[in-house]
């Protein structure tokens, strides 16, 4: 054996290093920059980056085994209706319209899906004044209405505004949880101009965070100090769930560009903040229009689009809590205007809504563009990866 070791050199040629490195997660790749100078400059090597990107979009295909895509959107006739489609197949060419569970059948004007599908369960909600939250397993047609929280019992002159932020599974407590932010608005001033004579009217209702546990079937107040991102009343909070952690975009109430990713661990109920990328090294002045948060092949990803610029950036998060670990991995340069990104599809797809409100999938690997035959108002789209499961919520 000693002889053979002499004959085969231990020196690994560059192309083989590429093959190995392209299979590593971003964190290891950045750490190994310190191994050797030639490894430190791998990210500047366009050949390597092409291999890495290709691997990134192709490596996790088993992640999508038996997975479908749920696409929610809104249509308008006399009033708005939310419509849910289950799309499946390699090219999402098979689609079935699903009926909402009974609590939402009479009123389907504003239904949202919270976070991601977990073990076949979806969390549906609307954010009207009478906010409804429902857990639903479409595969076995089972649903559970989540009871209201004690904080919703209020005097008639106060109403609460609920913003749902996350739905997920806590593997430590073997429990399903929903986290939300509740704000209160007092309508006192409409009918009382004389506060001095009614001191009880001066009670201040502070906003609060609360969490629901399926096991205890109740809400509990959380002691969290995070401001929620100011948003237009039309859009949905961007949130995803992965491995016991709910992620959403939060930020400063007044300056939308001071945004961060909030990662809330459902197990220990702690949160971490990661500022979103600032793209300052790009030396351009294009104004960021929007960051969309999504899961992309098992990674936290942001799709950023800019005013007056057709290119989209897709940045992948290497490490929760580290702003510099957002790696701008893809620049999508549409050779024809694709429209507005609404989410990731399956495998290497990004979904867009075109100006004519038609949904298209754009394959980052093959650059194929294909219409899905679904049409609706672009602001209300949601895409959710869904794996059928016979898990019963009642168990």
């Amino acid at each position, binding site marked *: 054996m000693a002889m053979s070791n002499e004959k*085969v050199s231990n020196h690994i040629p560059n192309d*083989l290093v590429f*093959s*190995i490195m392209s299979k590593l*997660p971003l964190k290891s790749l950045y750490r190994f*920059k*310190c191994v050797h100078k030639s490894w430190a400059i791998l990210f500047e090597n366009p050949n390597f980056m092409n291999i890495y990107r290709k691997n990134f979009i192709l490596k996790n295909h088993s992640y999508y085994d038996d997975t479908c895509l749920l696409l929610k959107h809104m249509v308008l006739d006399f009033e708005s209706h939310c419509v849910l489609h289950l799309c499946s197949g390699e090219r999402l060419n098979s689609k079935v319209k699903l009926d909402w569970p009974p609590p939402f059948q009479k009123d389907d004007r504003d239904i949202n899906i919270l976070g991601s599908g977990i073990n076949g369960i979806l969390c549906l909600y609307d954010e009207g004044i009478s906010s409804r939250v429902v857990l639903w397993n479409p595969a076995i047609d089972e649903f559970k209405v989540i009871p209201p929280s004690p904080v919703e019992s209020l005097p008639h002159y106060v109403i609460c505004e609920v913003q749902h932020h996350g739905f997920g599974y806590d593997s430590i407590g073997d429990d399903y949880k929903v986290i939300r932010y509740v704000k209160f608005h007092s309508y006192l001033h409409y009918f009382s101009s004389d506060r001095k004579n009614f001191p009880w009217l001066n009670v201040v209702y502070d906003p609060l965070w609360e969490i629901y546990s399926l096991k205890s079937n109740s809400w509990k107040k959380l002691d969290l100090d995070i401001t929620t991102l100011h948003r237009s009343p039309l859009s949905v909070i961007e949130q995803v769930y992965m491995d016991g952690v709910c992620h959403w975009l939060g930020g400063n109430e007044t300056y939308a560009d001071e945004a961060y990713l909030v990662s809330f661990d459902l197990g220990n109920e702690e949160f971490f903040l990661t500022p979103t990328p600032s793209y300052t090294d790009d030396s351009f002045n294009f104004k960021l229009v929007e960051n969309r948060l999504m899961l992309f092949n098992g990674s936290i990803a942001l799709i950023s689009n800019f005013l007056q610029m057709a290119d989209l950036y897709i940045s992948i998060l290497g490490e929760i809590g580290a702003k*510099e670990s957002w790696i701008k991995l893809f620049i999508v340069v549409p050779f024809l205007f694709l429209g507005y990104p609404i989410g990731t599809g399956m495998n290497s797809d990004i979904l867009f809504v075109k100006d004519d409100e038609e949904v298209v999938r754009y394959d980052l690997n093959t650059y194929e563009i294909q219409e899905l035959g679904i049409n609706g108002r672009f602001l209300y789209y949601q895409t959710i990866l869904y794996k059928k499961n016979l898990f019963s919520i009642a168990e």
Partner: protein
Amino acid sequence: MAAEKSSIKIITLIAADGSVFEVEPNIVKEMKTVQSYIDELDQNTVSIPLPNVFGNDLAMIIEYCKKHASEEETKEAKEEFDFEFVKRMKSDDKLRLLQAASYLNMESFLQFMAKAIAAEIENQSVEFVRDYFQIESDFTPEEEAELRKENEWAFK
């Protein structure tokens, strides 16, 4: 050229240490280096010297090819085999097999070995990786400290 251009029934592969392996043509299909050689021949048997691959390694590669060329084996059985195949290897074996795969121009086996090596070094320290590949650092201590600081998040 017609598809069944070659009439070769048995291929003899001769490893660097002189050990000899007789295999059927379907086993070497993935070895493009070997394939291109036999495509040009019109005879029943052929001997191919492989001076860059050792007998032990060639035996393992052939075992892998046999399993994967088999039409009777299920996908699950092949995955199980892959798992066990990597498990019994030392780091040196993986590196040698990766280089053999490169020499034999076996694309999917090369990707398979690269993945196995990546899994072994993932989340390891810089020192571990240098030792693994026997790489000498070409950074000054200051340069390395700077780079570590720049990429601090990757060391958490």
